[in-house]
């Protein structure tokens, strides 16, 4: 009984101070977020995506000529509705993360969507360029097929089975799954060291399949989001966290007690998913992507998002260079 009533009290005790805090509800700007994870405090690195810098990149992006838009029924429809319906997420660190206080979603994937919407509509208010519909690994293709969303930009790996159902523009980014461990870990150096280790990954990620393929027989523990996985490694529940390298690098910047080991052991070219109904749509988005690659807007977006956490700037991938794109 001892431990149980104790725990019950513990909630009550901590709760009363929360209630006081809520009651004293003051207004004003919320604090800037600090490093993730349990033990970290405000002393941590405060590097984070700046909404202003992000907005500036979107606003300086290219705008299509009216004739280009009117030549595409798809783009005309989007221009008419005034925004793009993007399939994605609100809790994807670095790629598509929502600021709960402003409701604004920023990140590299969010930026591709916003740049495309800006390209089509020319809208000046960045906050109104896209509406995000939540997707999961299993819903993305169908949502494109039945036109629930206009595009999917969601760390969406181009694969042949998927390309049979929908069309991929791009790739616009080349990434891969990598391995995150505690900074003091010396036993895990590459994917071959993962056999028999306790692994975690996000429950909605393709890393599950990658682990099944590269670490046969290993069944990872699944958590709902990046933060839970980070906490699991920090708290020692897991030896390693497998996910997209950029996200892991971002975690390592925010949490000095974590590091990324080796180079990605998978190749994940990310594409913009669009409906297969009208082949012109894919061509339209490819033209747009080539435009931002050439104009440097793509790199500017990378620097404002992924580049906040990762040093070496990549070069843009070649459109259509991946089977399925």
């Amino acid at each position, binding site marked *: 009984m001892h431990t149980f009533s104790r725990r019950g*009290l513990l909630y*009550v005790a901590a709760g009363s101070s929360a209630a006081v805090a809520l009651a004293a509800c003051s207004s004003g700007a919320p604090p800037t977020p600090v490093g993730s994870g349990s033990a970290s405090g405000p002393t941590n690195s405060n590097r984070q995506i700046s909404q202003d810098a992000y907005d500036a990149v979107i606003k300086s992006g290219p705008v299509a000529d009216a004739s280009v838009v009117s030549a595409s029924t798809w783009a005309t429809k989007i221009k008419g509705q005034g925004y793009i319906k993007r399939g994605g997420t609100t809790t994807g660190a670095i790629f598509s993360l929502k600021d709960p206080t402003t409701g604004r979603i920023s990140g590299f994937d969010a930026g591709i969507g916003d740049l495309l919407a800006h390209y089509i509509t020319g809208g000046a208010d960045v906050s109104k360029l896209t509406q995000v519909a939540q997707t999961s690994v*299993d819903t993305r293709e169908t949502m494109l097929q039945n036109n629930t969303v206009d595009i999917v930009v969601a760390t969406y790996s181009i694969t042949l089975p998927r390309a049979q159902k929908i069309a991929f523009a791009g790739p616009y980014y080349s990434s891969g799954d990598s391995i995150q461990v505690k900074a003091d870990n010396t036993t895990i150096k590459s994917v071959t060291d993962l056999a028999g280790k306790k692994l975690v990954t996000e429950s909605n990620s393709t890393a*599950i*399949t990658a682990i099944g393929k590269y670490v046969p027989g290993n069944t990872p523990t*699944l958590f709902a989001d990046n933060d839970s996985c980070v906490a699991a490694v920090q*708290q020692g*529940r897991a030896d390693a966290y497998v996910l997209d390298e950029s996200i892991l690098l971002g975690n390592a910047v925010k949490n000095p007690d974590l590091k990324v080991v080796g180079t990605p052991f998978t190749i994940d070219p990310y594409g913009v998913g669009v409906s297969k109904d009208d082949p012109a749509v894919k061509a339209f988005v490819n033209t747009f992507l080539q435009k931002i690659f050439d104009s440097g807007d793509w790199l500017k977006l990378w620097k404002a998002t992924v580049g906040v956490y990762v040093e070496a700037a990549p070069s843009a991938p070649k459109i259509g260079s991946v089977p399925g794109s």
Partner: protein
Amino acid sequence: MDQIWQMLGENSSFLLNGVLTTVGLTILGFGGALVIGTIVAVFRVSPITPLRVVGTAYVEFFRNVPLLTLLILIVFGLPDIGLLFPLFWCGVLGLVLAGSAFICETVRSGINTISVGQSEAARALGMSFGTQLRLIILPQAFRTMVQPLVNNFIGILIGSSLASAVGVSDITNVTQQLNIRYAEAVVLFLLSGAVYLVFALGAGGVGSWLERLVSRSRIGSAR
């Protein structure tokens, strides 16, 4: 079809582990909740006011907090204050805490059905509190508690599935993982659904049997 058999074959131990994890969560959760729930019930009716207050606060908190919220707090919150338990035991702990709040109320209503004369007689015979509880009150209260306890058990069985959302590899979690890997949704969901259905109906059957058993052995009515 071959594909499905291959998947089931390759992952038979993974699936079996999932089923065993669900069973383990449920049995340990129910057992723990039964013990804690009975103790809290005694707290709630004891003449010692602070114990009543603690008992009531315990029940009101854990009966009203959603299990998923509780599990997330246990898995991710407790390590922040230095309490790190293995995931499986986090699941058990959540089920015990939530389950005991409900079982406490079952036990309390059960005790309420006993007539005061029973315990007065027991006390007149010089029985201690423990003996009285063990030999006179709980066995009689148990009669009216069988069906509610079965419901508590099924509730804990079904609640155990929420542990899958915090990384416990129970049958729901295994289903989810294999579905992402093999895309055999129908088979996998039917399979795990059947696991819950069989256990729930089984528990219901055991409950009816127990109820018949205790009602047959009824000597003098409690009332």
